[in-house]
Structures are given as structure tokens and as C-alpha cells.
């Protein structure tokens, strides 16, 4: 059964400029299937996607568009509400600037244009009232590019694609996220991590882990939904080789990777993104706290720098409860 017949979905957007690699994503994505080789997919910045949905009255996890680098243009095919989150400035409707982080009423024929993000931050999210209507694949509407599944035909959007949306259902209140609650973007980030699973003393030396926390890491241009890669760094390692698993001390017998894990692929650290491979034979020296994953989605390849800060489980829980608060619609203003 197609998405269109399932929920009386109707055409909502026609793509004029799809931008760099715009995809349909939902949250929490394709969970529960890592044992079959699926990482979750879904937004690299889960906060951005969920807030965009809440602004237009959708479920927080409804399918929406993820727009890396910000560039995007589409014609509105159905009147309703839209909301864009992410780095501000450069978004217009019929040539007039529109605010981000708030629901905007749109009419059929309106042209939405988003310029390349010049300042801090990297990904925008566009939600339409009702939510983007595409078929589920393996329990999620999220696009997984490498396997060609989910989203719109399993691929990034192209010019002239028409995206459907589900009915919005009744009159909806336009919401705005208060400025004080919006995330702060920068080009120099601090990202909270938990040590392990493969850190000191058995994989890294204590000094190595200190160096990991002390260093300033530059995001490599070769970063995308599969992972954020950093400049090479030579650790001392607490062992001399990877035994049967391979020559390098970062090698181990293949294991399933945690989402958000920071992988030591030889001398190159990579934060495993939502479309990463699910397993492999390399050490994961630290794991990004769940509530800090949204920051990873706003790292600009080739420009931003990161310092990692170690936190414990209590601090991670506190961060998570703060994040949950942010998504509570009662904290939003009505427009």
C-alpha cells in the first residue's frame, strides 16, 4: 500500500533545487534492527527535526526534510503550516524573509527558498503540517542512502520531485520556539562523551585518553550522514598490535558499534553517524552522550573544531531531561 493511498496524503512540495543532499528522515528512525545490520538512520540533529515538527503541530518524530548546507528551493503545493529549524538567515517565502524556529502559514504556489548557510551550523530541517508522506521501509520513513531504502525512492531529493504530506487535521496553532531555548551554534564546539567501550587502560594509555580530551579536533571535509571524521592523530596505544584481528592496535574482533560511538579507524577518529555501518573491527574509544548528538548534526565539515568533554551517566541523564523539556510544547510561544 503506498503512502498516498494509506492516509489520503496529497502533494505538498515540488522541489526546484534539492541542494546538496536533502533527504526525508523521521525520528527515532529504524530502531531495533541492528542485529540485521541496520543503524537507525533518522536526523543527524534529532532536536532540529523534532522541534520543526512540534512547531507545526506534528508528532515530534514525523517525517521531515533534512537539508545539509541549507540550500533548498521548493514550490508549496498545499496550503498549511511549515517550519524550518537550524541556522538562521537566508530563508525567504516569495522573496520575503521568513523567520526560522516558528510555524509559517503557506499557500499553494508559494516559493520557499533557503540560501547556503554562511554562518555557524550546518543542517536545516523543514517540517510540513501533517508530516511528509512516504512509505515505511523496515519500520521507518528515514532514507538510508547506501542501501537505497526509505524516504523518497531511497535516495536524496532531485529537481522536480513531488513530495506528499499527510492531512494536517483541523485548525492548528502556529508555534514559535522562544529565542532563549533555541540551540546555540558555533564553529568551535564542546561535545559531551562517555568513556569507552574501548578506552584506557586496555586499549589506550591514560595519556592517550587525556590527549583525546585535551586536543582540538578539526572536522574533515569528508564527513556526512555516515560519520564525522577528524584530523589524524597518532595515539600511543596500550598494546602493540591488534592480535588476530589485524595489525593496528585499534583492531579487534568484529563487534556491533554503538550509535554515536567515536571510532578509532587506525589513526583517524570518526563519530559514527545515523547511516554508519553497524559493526566492524575497530576500537570505539568514547561514545557521544545521547543528548549531545544534535550538536554532531550541526558540525560543518572542513571548518568546525571540536573538543570532547567527558561526563558520567548522571550528567548524561541531566542533559537528556533538559532536552526533553525543550520539546515540551508548553514552553513554546503561540504566534
Amino acid at each position, binding site marked *: 500500500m503506498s503512502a498516498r493511498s494509506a492516509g489520503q496524503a496529497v502533494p505538498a512540495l515540488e522541489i526546484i533545487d534539492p541542494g546538496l543532499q536533502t533527504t526525508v528522515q523521521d525520528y527515532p528512525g529504524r*530502531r*531495533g*534492527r*541492528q*542485529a*540485521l*545490520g*541496520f543503524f537507525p538512520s533518522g536526523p543527524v540533529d534529532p532536536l532540529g527535526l523534532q522541534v520543526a515538527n512540534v512547531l507545526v503541530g506534528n508528532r515530534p518524530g514525523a517525517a521531515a526534510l533534512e537539508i545539509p548546507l541549507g540550500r533548498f528551493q521548493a514550490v508549496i503545493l498545499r496550503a498549511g503550516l511549515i517550519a524550518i529549524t537550524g541556522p538562521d538567515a537566508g530563508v525567504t517565502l516569495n522573496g520575503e524573509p521568513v523567520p526560522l524556529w516558528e510555524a509559517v502559514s503557506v499557500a499553494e504556489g508559494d516559493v520557499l527558498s533557503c540560501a547556503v548557510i554562511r554562518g555557524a551550523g550546518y543542517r536545516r530541517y523543514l517540517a510540513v503540517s501533517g508530516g511528509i508522506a512516504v512509505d515505511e*521501509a*523496515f519500520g521507518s520513513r528515514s532514507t*538510508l542512502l*547506501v*542501501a*537505497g*531504502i526509505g524516504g523518497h525512492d*531511497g535516495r536524496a531529493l532531485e529537481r522536480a520531485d513531488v513530495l506528499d504530506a499527510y492531512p494536517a487535521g483541523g485548525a492548528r496553532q502556529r508555534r514559535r520556539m522562544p529565542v532563549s531555548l533555541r540551540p546555540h551554534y558555533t564553529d568551535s564546539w564542546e561535545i559531551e562523551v*562517555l*568513556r*569507552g*567501550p*574501548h*578506552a*584506557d587502560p*586496555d586499549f589506550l594509555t591514560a595519556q592517550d585518553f587525556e590527549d583525546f580530551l585535551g586536543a582540538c579536533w578539526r572536522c574533515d571535509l569528508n564527513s556526512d550522514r555516515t560519520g564525522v571524521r577528524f584530523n589524524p592523530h597518532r595515539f600511543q596505544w596500550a598494546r602493540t598490535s591488534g*592480535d*588476530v*584481528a*589485524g*595489525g593496528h592496535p585499534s583492531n*579487534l*574482533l*568484529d*563487534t*556491533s*558499534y*554503538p*550509535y*554515536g*560511538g567515536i571510532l578509532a579507524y587506525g589513526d583517524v577518529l570518526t563519530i559514527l553517524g545515523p547511516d554508519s*555501518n*553497524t*559493526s*566492524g*573491527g575497530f576500537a*570505539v574509544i568514547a*561514545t*557521544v*552522550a*545521547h543528548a549531545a548528538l544534535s550538536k554532531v548534526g550541526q558540525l560543518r565539515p572542513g571548518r568546525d573544531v571540536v573538543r570532547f568533554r*567527558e561526563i*558520567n*551517566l548522571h550528567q*548524561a*541523564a541531566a542533559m*537528556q531531561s533538559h532536552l526533553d523539556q525543550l520539546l515540551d510544547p508548553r514552553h513554546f510561544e503561540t504566534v
Partner: protein
Amino acid sequence: MSAIITTAEPRAGRPKVTYRTAGDRAVLVEYGHTIPVDLSVNFFAHASAQHLADHPVRGVLEVAPGLRSLLVYYDPAVIGQDRVVVALEELHDDIPEPASIVLPSRRLTLPIAFDDSASREAVNRYRISTRPDAPNVVDGNNIDYLVRYNGLPNREAFAERILRTEWWNAFTGFYPGLPSLLPLDPRSEIIAPKYNPARGWTPEGAVALGGPCLVIHPIESVGSYQLFGRTLPISNLVRQPRSHRIDPILIHPGDRITFVEVTEGELIELRRQVFEGRYDYAIEPGRYAVADHLKLGSDPEVAAEAQRRRATRGAAQELVKVP
């Protein structure tokens, strides 16, 4: 905070268990020791996953096995890390002695064409675009390198190792539906170093070796294992009408694969039948008793031959360049 939460020493058929923090929503549970590759430990990981599926722990969301590990995701709003570890410790106590472990395991038979032209194409592209002097590329393929690295007399001996054993799917991962297979017969053990750097393109259906594992590529993708043949499609992710459309992931964790040699011409015809929805995959439901594996491994002749082959490989590796 240490990355290692706690360890439990081996006791009564239980391997050593190491619990590691994997973020604020997962625990990585490692069984046994870093070396050697030990199928019994993988069976234990499967038994734990199965036991957890049969006796769910509230707040534990999903588990994903590795060669000697389980990644256990949990919801920290429902259960704390310390309670997850306690629940897993209790669970491990309920796993029977290895000789009594019986796991759900289907038997699948797949045709394989050795040294097929799609694999050779992938190797050739690698040679041209990535590394002209790769020591693992000999005469446009990786098989002759695999033969040398394992101290085998010829390609026939290599094919025999692939064909004369059942291959156990130790875990599925990397890409959707990609199985990592280990030989149930220790005499078929083959080890291969990985590509350096990785290969940019691998055909769907390619069969390759890396470390101790044999893999089948479910989709066209990058890769770093040594290619030696091709089989049928093993995934149907986009749900085209094919004969295994009931289950888009053909090979599940704990399944056993037997390869049957075919010519490339025959394979191409069989692949056509799959794409046209006319092919019925050979799948037998069943269970696997770990006792069978232990019995084979403890047969003195089998053990001696496996040891001899291991020693031959060890000597051969000294003479072969690693990529």
C-alpha cells in the same frame, strides 16, 4: 569513570564476561578473551541473545551480537546501567553448559562461482584507481593471494576449504543483511588480511574473506575483504518481487550456509531466475546443537589436521607481504 564497568571470571561453562560502557544507552558485553577466534564464545553470545529474547528485561530495547560480544541498548529512563549489568549476570547464569546449548539455525545452500568476472572487475578497478602495486592483487584477482597467504598448494585446495564445511553466521552487520560467517569445521579455517586502503566498489553477491570471516555482499558497496567468488542476491531491500520476498534479509544470525560450486554461466542463469522471481532458495528450518561442533573439534584426527593446517599457514604468512 572507567570504560570497563565490571568483569566476571569464567565459571561452570561460562566464558569470562567484560561489561563496558558504550554511551548512556548501551552496554557492550564481551565474552571470552581477545584471542583466539572461538566459536564456542560466539555460540554463548547467541544463546544469551536468545535467552534475552525469550525472557525480556523491562527497559532493554535491543541486542546486536558481534563475533564475541553483545551490544545491549537500554532506555535509561526505565532501567539504569547497573541494573542492566545485574540482569545480564543473572541471565548468563541461566545459559546451559556449552554442550547443552541448542540454537535456532536454518540451513541454506547457495551456489558459488569462483573467480567470476564481477569480482575480477572490482579487483581491476581497484588496481587502476586505488593501488597499482597492491600485493593482494595477483593476475587480476585475490584468490592466488589467498592461496599463498594460507599456505595452500593450489586453487583447488582453496575451493575445497570453502565447499567442505558449513559456514556459521556469527553475526549480521556492517551493511543491512551482511553475514559474517565462520567455518564449523576447523579444517576449513582461512585467514586473510584486509585491503589497504579499502576498495571503492564491490559487486552485490560478491563473496570475500577478511580476518577469520567469510562475507557475502548484500549490496553494491565499498569493501576491504579479499574477493574470490560470487553467489546469489542475499537481500531484497527494495522489495522487488523475488522468491525470498517474505524475508528481505536472507541470512539471519545463527544460520548455516553450504556453498555448491557452479560455473559462472550457471550462476548468471540462477541470478536471472532470482530477479524474475522464479528461484526458490534452498532453506531448511532447524536447530544447531553446539555439542556437534564440540564433537567434531575434539576428534583427534580433525584436531590434528586443523593444527597442521594452522601451522602451515603460519609458516606461509611469514613469506607473504601484507597489504
